[in-house]
């Protein structure tokens, strides 16, 4: 049998009796899928579309903020810790230094009291000095006012003359005192010349500060027991030193000779 004949035979197979009942049965069993209705596509709102992404982004941002705050807190705590550690180290070093120093000597309470009293005194003097300075400024101002009025030169001359007088009184007193000291070693008799007790005096006490002339010994060799006898005299200022060492300003009075020949002060 040739291949063509065989294929021709195969293309014309015997017919099969198709049962009609089966067709009816299958027709009854037709179950078509339900038609699908396409739902209208409604575009979701902006918030509904982006809400998941926004939520994730917000969550991520919150995490970043929390991390930043924590990092900042940690950095602050580290700085604080470093500062405290440095302070602790400084304190430790100071303590070590103090411990190595020798023990301070105890302060005497009495010395402290003295120092406090001295401090109070100094403060009082300071306040007095301030008051004096204030008075001085007041006087200077008054002086200037008076000088502006016209009698300034007379005032200053008087003051200067008074100062020279007081200085002369002081010299004369030193002069009389030195003579009395000399008389103790020489039979209670005052010296008759300044050369005898020169070594007991400095140079200026022998002279009047205004005239630079030596004082006049008016009663040489007078006993020191008679206090009313004048011993030395400054003719310029009319001041007299008595034998007891005191000094008197005679003013307009004069030295006069008494009936017994002794000099006395005019009354």
């Amino acid at each position, binding site marked *: *049998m040739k*291949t063509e*004949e*065989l*294929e*021709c*035979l*195969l*293309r*014309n*197979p*015997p*017919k*099969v009796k*198709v*049962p009609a009942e*089966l*067709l009816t*049965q*299958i*027709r009854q*069993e*037709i*179950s*078509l*899928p*339900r*038609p*699908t209705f396409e739902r209208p596509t409604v575009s979701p709102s902006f918030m509904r579309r982006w809400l998941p992404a926004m939520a994730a982004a917000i969550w991520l941002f919150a995490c970043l903020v929390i991390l930043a705050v924590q990092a900042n807190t940690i950095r602050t705590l580290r700085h604080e810790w470093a500062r405290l550690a440095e302070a602790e180290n400084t304190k430790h070093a100071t303590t070590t230094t103090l411990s190595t120093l020798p023990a301070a000597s105890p302060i005497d309470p009495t010395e402290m009291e003295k120092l406090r009293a001295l401090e109070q005194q100094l403060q009082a003097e300071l306040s007095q000095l301030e008051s004096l300075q204030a008075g001085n400024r007041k006087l200077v101002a008054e002086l200037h006012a008076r000088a502006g009025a016209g009698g300034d030169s007379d005032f200053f001359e008087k003051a200067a003359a008074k100062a020279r007088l007081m200085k002369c009184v002081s010299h004369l007193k030193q002069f009389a005192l030195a003579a009395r000291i000399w008389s103790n070693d020489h039979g209670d008799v005052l010296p008759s010349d300044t050369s005898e007790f020169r070594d007991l005096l400095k140079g200026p006490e022998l002279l009047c500060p205004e005239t630079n002339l030596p004082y006049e010994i008016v009663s040489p060799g007078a006993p020191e027991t008679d206090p009313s006898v004048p011993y030395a005299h400054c003719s310029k200022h009319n001041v007299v030193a008595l034998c007891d060492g005191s000094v008197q300003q005679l003013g307009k009075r004069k030295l006069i000779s008494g009936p017994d020949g002794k000099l006395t002060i005019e009354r």
Partner: protein
Amino acid sequence: MDRSDELCEKAVQGDYQAANALLEQNYPAIYSFFRRLCPTEADSADLTQKTFAKVWTSLPSFQGRSSFRTWIHGIAHHVYVDWQRSPNRLASQPDEWWLSCPAAGPNPADLTIDRDAANTVYAAIDQLDDASRETIHLHYYQGLTLQETAQAQGIATSTVKYRIRAALAELRSRILTRNDLKQSAKV
């Protein structure tokens, strides 16, 4: 667009008349396909019912990449393969069944091949292996082209050609052997 495709689209939309038309159009071929392969009418009817049940459920997935005829034969092929794998299936068609079937076309005697030779060919086809036998059925009995047969079976067209060529060679050898035996018996 093929009429079957239009009916398929309507059936997908739930048109019962279109589905009925598809059934009436393809039911004889599918039943014949199963009846020639299966030993009993009950198995053929059962497989035909299963095939159309799958057709209705799979109808929305039909995308028209092949003809509807090819697609439904592909489903029938898978149903038949599943049935073949079932353990309780019987053997293939006995020779008596082929003798009872009316021959189509011209009389075999007119084609210089007697009826006995035709039955011998059909019986020899049943002796082929399952794959080659199904290929012969789809290509010759069901009238599918080589490409449609390949699509229905899910194999390459070259494989279909190879199987057909091997099956025809096998058939020729068997027919020749049987004729030789008959002639020797007559002598």
